[in-house]
């Protein structure tokens, strides 16, 4: 229960619906923080707008609850101003992949030292159930009443291609795996990204005949495939399945905020004198 020190308990209960997975993600985050030895006086958690983004308000540390989609851009300013602080972003799939998609790929490209946890419920929860870039094709939402025509992002592959140096995916059903990934992401020096599938029975479930929390949990369980197992499956067999695992981890790319400090130090020593 050591991890409870990371919560502002006076502000509980939280705003999330019964059966929502976001509380489980938050629970995994604080356990991971405990295991990673996070100093809550030297950590800033940053979020955007959405049900998931409310998570930072319940965390007992410096917290920055920003505008929709912009968490990573705000966090970039924080990290560059105070590279000595640990910075983490907690936000939804709509926030990070739709309105904030550009900031996501650029933060990954810079390899700036920010740990990002994406609460992926495949829908816009806060605005009551419209499709997001993570809504799988065929599913119904209030704005895809006849079934969604667009394909969803593979967010992990996107972020990895953009330059992230730690990339993993889990679900709230696989909570121990989630804790492990978030812990590793927090310990990672560079842009780290963990996508966590989180059920939204209220909107996603209700529109897709999975309105009760248990059915949605079972759906997560049934559609998940571990990466090792997925490697032995055909594309046919993988259709509609969600691959979990640690997809990418490298320490070869320098962390951006540190590179910037090193440049400042070089300039202070009179380096780059002749350059114009």
């Amino acid at each position: 229960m050591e991890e409870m020190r990371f919560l502002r308990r006076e502000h509980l209960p939280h705003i999330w619906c019964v059966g929502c997975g976001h509380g489980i993600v938050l629970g995994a985050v604080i356990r991971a923080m405990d295991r990673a030895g996070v100093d809550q006086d030297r950590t800033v958690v940053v979020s955007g707008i959405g049900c998931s983004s409310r998570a930072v308000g319940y965390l007992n540390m410096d917290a920055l609850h920003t505008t929709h989609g912009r968490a990573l851009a705000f966090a970039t300013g924080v990290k560059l101003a105070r590279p000595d602080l640990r910075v983490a972003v907690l936000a939804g799939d709509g926030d990070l992949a739709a309105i904030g998609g550009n900031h996501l790929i650029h933060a990954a490209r810079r390899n700036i030292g920010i740990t990002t946890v994406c609460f992926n419920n495949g829908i816009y929860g806060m605005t009551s159930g419209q499709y997001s870039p993570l809504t799988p094709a065929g599913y119904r939402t209030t704005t895809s009443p006849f079934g969604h025509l667009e394909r969803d992002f593979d967010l992990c592959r996107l972020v990895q291609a953009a330059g992230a140096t730690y990339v993993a995916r889990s679900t709230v059903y696989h909570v121990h795996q989630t804790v492990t990934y978030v812990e590793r992401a927090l310990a990672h020096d560079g842009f780290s990204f963990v996508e966590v599938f989180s059920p939204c029975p209220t909107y996603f479930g209700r529109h897709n005949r999975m309105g009760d929390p248990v059915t949605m949990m079972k759906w997560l369980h049934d559609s998940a495939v571990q990466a090792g197992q997925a490697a032995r499956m055909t594309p046919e067999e993988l259709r509609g399945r969600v691959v979990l695992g640690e997809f990418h981890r490298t320490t070869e790319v320098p962390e951006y905020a540190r590179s910037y400090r090193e440049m400042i130090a070089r300039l202070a020593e009179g380096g780059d004198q002749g350059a114009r």
Partner: protein
Amino acid sequence: MSQPRLMQGNEACVEGALEAGLQFFAGYPITPSTEIAEMLAERLPRAGGVFIQMEDEIASMAAVIGASLAGMRAMTATSGPGFSLKQENLGYAALTETPCVVVNVQRVGPSTGMPTSPAQGDVMQSRWGTHGDHPVVVLSPSSVMETYVLTAKAFAVADELRVPVILLTDEITGHMRERVVLPDPGTLPRPHRPLEGAAPPDIPPMVHFGEGRRVLVTGLYRDSTGFWSESPEEADRLVRRLAGKVESRQEQLTMVDRWHLDDAQVVVVAYGCVARSAQRAMRLARERGHRVGMLRLACLWPFPGHEIEALAERADRIVVPEMNLGQMVGEVERAVRGRCKVIGYSRVDTELIRPEELLPVLEGV
């Protein structure tokens, strides 16, 4: 005293910002503001500060706020289209009381227009660009030297009142080169943020990230503890306090030049690049025996309504020349309330208003 230098307005902005203690700049290139970013990309890291070119203006504004909350004095610079993109997060800075400076070197609009010709079309956007009632301070220089002074002033006001301050300049003032003599380094008063125990009653003390205070900064309305709140009373108190912070300091924020107002029958009210032409037109008219005076505005918002009211009692006519279809003139009319004639003079063909064309307007022909 430093040596006289030939300097561009944008360059003076950089010098003023650095003298005020700028530590962080985030921006996205756009003419006619880009020189500011380019110069700071070189100067800031050499001074131990941080420069970053973000992926767009929305991100730049966000990064500036993040850096400011983490304790750095922070600024961004842009023009027209980029200024539009900054609006949502400008509102966030206003609500969260995050000090920051936003430079808008105005160009024509709407949209791309005829890039990158000068205009003064963002007077109202600078005041009301973000949604909702909010406090904001807008300073508008008319010369290169004044760009230096007002940039430094912008940081002082931003820190003291915990508000975003907009430096509303224009393509002409930004790109014009003039001879300036800057004050010696270290002679300007350093800006300071209200600290615990020393903050005025209507401005909360500034607490930065990393001080072990575990603060929550949110764009939601908040209660006195800083946590989000849905209480109508708290909402009312917050919105009124934020607006009042600037309104109640209107006199302290009034920055005007008053020329020949004692005997003036006609007063020209001008700001930014147009103030230079207007001043010349006033002189020419006086040489020809007309009792013309001028009020030049360096702080546009809060609008110095009390100055205009005083004029309305004495003058027959107030002339407001602007490089837009009449934005400030409406505000002047509001303050005059019919007590004298108010005449707008607009130019939106991308050309600067010239003194000779103003002369007949001032002389009433």
